[in-house]
């Protein structure tokens, strides 16, 4: 009975602890899961070099591969401000111009965002390619609105 109580206290503590860690720690600190180009543009110099996530729309015709390197450059926008990004690595398949992306990295003093991790942010509309080619659009949340909080 004594041993059972110890195990129970231990199990409850582990689960309650993990729940608290998720609710207060992970949920709380990621309520602002990413920052927007406008917010990054307004960062003070003491925020340079700090790890963060930046999200925006990949500006059309901004995507370039740097020759003789594994670097890719592009720009992310929220409609108001645009931030140039230098990425080192292999971009994911669904990372495309005119689409959303979340990048992890740091803003440096040259006002450029340096990243080693890209996540593609896709929208909530689903349709076959024929419909898309026919120019059909389904109702969906405006991309720039998905960058803001309600």
């Amino acid at each position: 009975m004594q041993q059972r109580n110890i195990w129970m206290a231990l199990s409850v503590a582990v689960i309650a602890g993990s729940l608290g860690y998720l609710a207060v720690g992970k949920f709380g600190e990621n309520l602002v899961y990413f920052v927007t180009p406008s917010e990054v543009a307004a960062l003070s110099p003491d925020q340079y070099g700090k790890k963060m996530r930046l999200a925006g729309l990949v500006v059309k015709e901004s995507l370039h591969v740097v020759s003789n390197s594994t670097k890719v450059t592009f720009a992310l926008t929220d409609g108001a401000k645009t931030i140039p990004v230098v990425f080192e690595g292999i971009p994911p398949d669904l990372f495309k111009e005119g689409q959303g992306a979340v990048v992890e990295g740091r803003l440096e003093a040259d006002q450029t965002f340096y990243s080693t991790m890209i996540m593609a942010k896709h929208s909530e509309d689903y349709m076959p390619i024929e419909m898309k080619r026919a120019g059909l659009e389904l109702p969906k949340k405006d991309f720039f609105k998905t960058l803001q909080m309600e």
Partner: protein
Amino acid sequence: MISFLRRYQGWFAVGAYLFLAAGLYTGLVSSPADYYQGEVVRIMYVHVPFAYNAMLAYTIFFGGSVWYLWKKDPVIDNVCQASAAVCLFFTAIALVTGSLWAKPTWNTWWTWDPRLVSFAMLLLILSGYFTLRAFLEDDEKAAVYGAVLGVIGFVDLPIIHFSVEWWRTLHQPLSFSTRGVSMAPGMLIPLILMSVGTSLLLTYVIMSRTQVVYLRHLLEAKQGRLLGATKL
């Protein structure tokens, strides 16, 4: 109640088979690939039905918990245990399929996005429930504590649902909202078939699991009486 469950559960099982068979065929074979995601979109036909039916199972668990706290009917506690078990299982499936879908589309298995974190919390709430039930020896006390946890945990449901609208997330916003339906008919059909099929499966499993839990309690009570008798 128990005889009612035993009599009608078969219909739900048959319905689940039919809808899931039609849903899997349309979802995996006859429906079109997505213009952006390609073939990977088919994971949605499993992920979305299991995620939302996990929340439906929790709603049943919540309703049962309120009812139990009010009436203290032991059969309702059996329903609570059954629906919580189904919810735990469906939540795990939704998390795993979500992860499998996230890697090829987002480029990560997991990220600390509010939708993902709030959904993972559901798994922990249910783990807490079963830990409580496993350790508390007094059955009525375990039922009451469990029901209280079930009621409190319900706040996670609206947070999960609206997280993609209220906060910044990597997860896409709602495809079915006041904005309208953001899905082509050819993809909506397998999703509806799978969702109905999963709901029928959920109902069937809760019905049959309730009987298992009920019979186990009955057996334990009888064993208790026998052991008591031998002591005399």
